């Protein structure tokens, strides 16, 4: 379909992007001195931790920094066109015509008011001005069909909110296809999706590349995703390219420390947990849920988020809960610590039914059930110093005097690997991983017996993720805590869990000792989940 020429599809030479910062006269160097080329039909993954400049570099390929105040130097050539020098018309031709971009969040990236087919047709007409309305519509249906939307002709009339996440992502890819670009730039196209859907999308991209011969630049922070989709890898850190070469080679023999670190931190789903903590006492049941139920909404719109879940948590053990988005993990976790009141079923804590207790009645043992939250940003009050946040449970308990509280908070900060002097600093002065440590310290402060961790590491980079997971493991062992570890990432869960619970649609589909479930999954759903996990090893990736 595309004419294969000798000139590379993309040439980036000494690209630097700087953003002026709002306050003062400082600048953020998002990308500095980046150079790479991509041959026609080639596939390159740009990987690196958050904030390393991946998206910024990708945007430069389409000249999307124009008019935003960002300062771009160096040259970028896409399909022979100098992006920097191109005038507005030429740039518009390039966008979509030569290179198309697929953005991360599939919902917000589509116009909520227009039918998906119309949006695709509009983009098609932008690059085929001669095409009639009808022809563009037909093309839209065609590409939707191509990306695997069932009954495309009918679904083309749906609006984005009527599509599921995966379908939206497909629609965005279809939109790109509609213009027959020679290069597809995908900025984290699968981060918002479940593993199973992610696997489907990655497969689709692979297929399309083989079929149309278009080039692909995949921006991702997930090495697993990169490994399974491209031939070439570009590792970025702090706006610079750290390592660049064939994917297999880098994965097998990383040359740079940073790459090595990155690789080491990636959790593997097929590796057993090193030390399995044995519950102190087999009978010491801490928390017991029987037929737990939770509904949201009223009347016809009732959603049963958790349905008939029975679960036992013994002192000192770690229970992992996995399942795709919306399967009720968070809802279950919040019920376990009684942030939510169950609609039905029984919840016994140390033998006492706490399911229906009022806030006031809960107070006496609130401190024994704690939670670590997913989002390190919103889980800390931005207006209060982290020390105060950690001290809160101690102050509420009112057992210690001020000096003792401060001392204890400093001790906790140190324990989670932070500088004790961080007491008076505010959350925004910390990185994501550090904030999560603060969150853990806060949960530890009242000396709880159980901590529910709701996706405590999903918002973190692999390297930070590994550190935090390690910390949690240590603490659990040391303090003999019971931990409920919720995550959608099966590999992460495997690293910490003694027992595993797989949820789907609010129900438990499979439960058992972790290793058993991972190695011999019985339920088809669990099997599917495990199969969809992207593998890091090149051999596995191509398999």
């Amino acid at each position: 379909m595309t004419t294969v020429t000798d000139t590379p599809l993309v040439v980036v030479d000494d690209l630097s992007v700087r953003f002026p910062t709002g306050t003062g006269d400082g600048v953020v160097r998002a990308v500095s001195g980046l150079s790479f080329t991509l041959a026609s039909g080639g596939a390159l993954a740009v990987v690196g931790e958050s904030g390393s400049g991946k998206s910024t570099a990708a945007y430069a390929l389409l000249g999307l920094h124009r008019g935003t105040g960002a300062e771009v130097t160096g040259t970028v050539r896409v399909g022979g066109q100098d992006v920097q020098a191109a005038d507005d018309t030429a740039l518009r031709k390039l966008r979509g015509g030569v290179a198309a971009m697929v953005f991360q969040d599939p919902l917000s990236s589509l116009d909520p008011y227009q039918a998906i087919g119309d949006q695709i047709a509009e983009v098609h007409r932008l690059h085929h001005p001669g095409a009639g309305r009808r022809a563009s519509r037909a093309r839209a249906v065609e590409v939707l069909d191509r990306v695997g939307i069932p009954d495309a002709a009918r679904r083309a009339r749906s609006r984005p909110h009527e599509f599921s996440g995966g379908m939206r992502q497909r629609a965005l890819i279809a939109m790109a296809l509609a213009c027959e670009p020679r290069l597809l730039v995908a900025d984290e196209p699968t981060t918002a999706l479940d593993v199973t859907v992610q696997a489907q999308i990655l497969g689709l991209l692979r297929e399309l590349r083989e079929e149309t011969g278009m080039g692909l630049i995949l921006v991702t922070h997930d090495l697993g995703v990169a490994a399974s989709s491209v031939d070439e890898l570009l590792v970025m850190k702090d706006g610079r390219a750290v390592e660049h070469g064939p994917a297999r080679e880098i994965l097998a023999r990383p040359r740079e420390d940073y790459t090595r670190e990155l690789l080491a931190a990636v959790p593997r789903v097929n590796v057993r947990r090193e030390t399995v903590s044995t519950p102190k006492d087999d009978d010491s049941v801490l928390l017991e849920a029987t037929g737990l139920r939770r509904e949201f909404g009223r009347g016809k719109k009732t959603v049963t988020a958790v349905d008939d879940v029975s679960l036992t948590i013994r002192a000192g053990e770690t229970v992992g809960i996995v399942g795709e988005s919306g399967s009720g993990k968070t809802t279950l976790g919040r019920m376990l610590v009684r942030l939510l009141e169950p609609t039905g079923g029984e919840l016994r804590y140390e033998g006492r039914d706490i399911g229906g207790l009022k806030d006031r009645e809960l107070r006496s043992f609130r401190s024994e059930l704690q939670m670590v939250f997913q989002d390190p940003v919103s889980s800390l009050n931005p207006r209060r110093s982290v020390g105060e946040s950690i001290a809160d449970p101690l102050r509420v308990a009112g057992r210690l005097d001020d000096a003792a509280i401060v001392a204890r908070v400093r001790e906790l900060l140190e324990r989670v690997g932070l500088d004790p002097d961080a007491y008076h600093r505010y959350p925004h002065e910390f990185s994501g991983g550090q904030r999560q440590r603060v969150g853990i310290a806060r949960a530890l402060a009242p000396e709880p017996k159980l901590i529910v961790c709701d996706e405590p590491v999903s918002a973190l980079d692999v390297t930070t993720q590994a550190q935090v997971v390690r910390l949690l493991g240590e603490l659990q062992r040391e303090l003999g805590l019971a931990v409920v570890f919720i995550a959608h990432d099966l590999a992460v869960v495997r690293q910490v869990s003694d027992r595993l619970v797989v949820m789907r649609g609010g129900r438990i589909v499979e439960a058992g000792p972790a290793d058993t479930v991972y190695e011999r999954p019985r339920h088809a759903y669990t099997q599917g989940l495990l199969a969809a996990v992207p593998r890091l090893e090149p051999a596995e990736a191509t398999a």
Partner: protein
Amino acid sequence: MTGYFLRRALGALAVVLVLSAVVYATFYIAPGDPARLACGPRCNPEQIRQVREQLSLNDPVYLQYWHFLQGIVSGHDYSTGTGVLHCQAPCFGLSYQNDQQVTDLIVQRLPATASLATGAMVVWLLLGTGTGLLSALRRGGLTERVLTWLTLAGTATPVFISGLGLLMLFCAYLEWLPFPTYVPLMDDPEQWAWNMLLPWLALGLLESAKYARLTRSSMLETLAEDHIRTFRAYGATERSLIARHALRGAVAPVVALTAADFGSMFGNAMLTEMMFGLPGIGQLLVNATRTIDLPVVVAVVMVTGTAVVIANIVADLLYAAADRRVVLR
């Protein structure tokens, strides 16, 4: 949806009821004797006694209020002396002042207020959203600065200053326009419009400032949304981005606020009506307040309150219709 409606309608009813009760109670304890005011400047005690009886002012207040509510639901019969006057439901009673049916009084006043509100709405939509859009598109430029200052000045000008200014300028000095008198639309549409022009401008200008700011910020917010970025990345021109993708989302809050404001105009255009001598609801209310004409006051407050509540429901519906991401519950 039906459930939503039902709930909102019940809520609205409750609001209006509470409102009327509060008004009743407030005016009941206010000084001044309605019987004396109705009776005339030099009534003797016997006459006042008779009038008080005639107006049922001797009943306990809750009973008076109850009868008032009954009238709304099932109408009421009044003696005219020579015969019986049936005041049909919804009957808000008779004015203490001259035994006119309150319902009639309000119905007579509605056209003027509706004219004012509608015209002012057109003014603020055209002027407000127009300047708002313009300043959003020309952001950073001189146009934006000038428009920003103009709208700021607009919000800072109470209607009794802008109205006075307009009157002085167009009627007194330039003599381009007559001093406004209300001409019903049905009588003479052209004169209606000419006479309403200044009130529309005065009220519309004040409101348009608010709309300009809302439109501008809403437009900027929408332009920054991800789906706009998508189409920009496919080479859509800035103009088509706005026309095809941004406008609709940006307009949602404007439409919703318009509906809500239109509703509140029925009670809040009082100053404009006083300023320009428009025989509207607001004027009726102010006059009735001064003479403690309780049935009129309560009825007007109920009508304007209902307008506000309904307008808020409409606003929410419009908002939900315009912005798909909104969930009504």
